[in-house]
């Protein structure tokens, strides 16, 4: 009996330890530090709290309105004559590199950084910079509110936000709910190969090759539909990381991925073993700035005019080049 109890406690001890460790790992770094260094618990926690408080203050101070630089509004903008000084609430996607990316502490962004109005920290990315450049050109004021992509159209319809620039493809289905600006970015699929690959430059070169694709993506559908036409075989991976590894390792010859996404990863060196071989596959959808149907016509007109202007003066190309290199 005594032995059995001993055995039980021996078995329980490691279980407890493991469960404690598991508990710790899910909490934030600050809390882990506080709990592990038992002796200095009080001090550590206080430090963490103070830090959090300072961050909050900073955010509040910096957050809110990003006032346009008036010196630049001298350009011949005409759509802004109806602008009544409203501070527009404009949404971007909470996380969709390279269109909107949250700035990690201690890192620097390649271009303009915008502080968000809803305590989401600082954001950068193609969408964020284009919006900022257009706002500066047109002279309107806005608050950037990153949100989950799926919440954006409902928020537009309910009037919580006035506009959105969220890497959103212009589709007929969405046009029933929202008004889109002119397309501000063509966001199609790219065919990506190993950086050492030289023999794939067109679809005809895919004969006898192996495609890697991610389960359930448009890339998978395209690969399966075209495998017989071009004579390649299809392998399916459950996630993007495995699919990209397969091509980097040479276990597959090519993959299909959203052009801006893969191109950005190559640009920042995350996928240094890959390169884009064909940059547009099939139909290429355009991304658009959206407002609720029939509302905020002034904002939409200013966006379109501003977009045309920054395209003309080179600001647009400059911003895109920060994230996507060909």
């Amino acid at each position, binding site marked *: 009996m005594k032995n059995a109890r001993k055995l039980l406690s021996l078995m329980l001890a490691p279980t407890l330890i493991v469960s404690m460790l598991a508990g710790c790992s899910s909490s934030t770094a600050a809390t882990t530090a506080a709990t592990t260094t038992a002796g200095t618990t009080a001090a550590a926690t206080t430090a963490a709290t103070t830090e959090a408080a300072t961050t909050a203050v900073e955010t509040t101070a910096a957050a809110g309105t990003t006032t346009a630089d008036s010196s630049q509004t001298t350009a011949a903008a005409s759509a802004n004559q109806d602008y009544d000084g409203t501070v527009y609430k404009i949404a971007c996607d909470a996380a969709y590199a390279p269109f909107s990316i949250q700035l990690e502490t201690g890192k620097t962004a390649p271009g303009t950084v915008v502080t968000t109005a809803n305590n989401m920290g600082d954001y950068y990315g193609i969408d964020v910079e284009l919006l900022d450049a257009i706002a500066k050109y047109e002279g309107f004021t806005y608050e950037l509110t990153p949100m989950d992509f799926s919440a954006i159209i409902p928020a537009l319809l309910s009037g919580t936000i006035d506009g959105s620039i969220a890497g959103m493809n212009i589709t007929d289905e969405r046009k029933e709910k929202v008004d889109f600006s002119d397309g501000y970015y063509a966001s199609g699929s790219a065919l990506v190969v190993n950086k050492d690959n030289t023999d794939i430059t067109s679809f005809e070169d895919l004969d006898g090759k192996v495609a*890697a694709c991610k389960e359930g993506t448009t890339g*998978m559908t395209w690969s*399966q539909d075209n495998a017989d036409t071009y004579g390649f075989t299809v*392998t*399916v991976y*459950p996630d993007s990381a495995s699919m990209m590894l*397969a091509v980097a390792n040479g*276990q*597959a010859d090519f993959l299909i991925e959203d052009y801006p996404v893969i191109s950005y990863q190559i640009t920042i060196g995350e996928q240094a073993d890959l390169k884009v071989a064909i940059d547009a596959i099939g139909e290429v959808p355009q991304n658009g700035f959206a407002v609720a149907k029939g509302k905020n016509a002034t904002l939409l007109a200013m966006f379109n005019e501003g977009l045309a202007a920054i395209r003309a003066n080179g600001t647009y190309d400059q911003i895109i080049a920060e994230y996507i290199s060909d």
Partner: protein
Amino acid sequence: MLDYFSDFGKYLPALLGGLKLTLIIAVAGIALAIIIGIILCAFSISGIFVLEKIAGFYITVVRGIPLMILALFMYFGVIKNSLDLLPSAIIILAINASAYMAEIFRAGIQAIDFGQTEAARSLGLSYFQAMYKIILPQAFKIMIPSLMNQFISSLKDTAILSAISVNELTMTAKVIIARNYNAFELYSYAAIIYLIVIALLTYLSKRVERKLSYDKR
């Protein structure tokens, strides 16, 4: 309801293609695992300290790693493009199963009372003769249910190899679902196919067991 069965017929060829790959990998993997398992078992009952430690280390490491991690690590980290997908899959499954195999063999052999070895040795049989003629025939009978268990378990584990793009039965179903979203139908078809194959295997192993248990009723 009628659709359910007519769709089964429609997807059956694709699913059977997946099953074929599942069976090839399972059978070849287990065959290889048995070979590795025998060597490891020989190590661990050899009485030679270093060999025993090597076998113990291998078994601890392999049994302690989930097959998913082993597959991703071996395929993307070690094998890379030095081998095709199919041999890679077989080797990965074999490594995983070999540790269990070694333990099944060891347990079977050690289940035979050591007195029998002593008796055989005292009658003038060599160690290997005693092993071959007295111990192994009895041990084999004890091992059969566990071996069958391991085979069934490995057969189902092939589904995990879909992580490295092996287009076996589960993956075939998943890829079809990714296009038509019929999760209920396709997964149940796959489950039925697995069930039929494993029921057949179980029946077969019961027959073998009965054949060999002439001394018991």
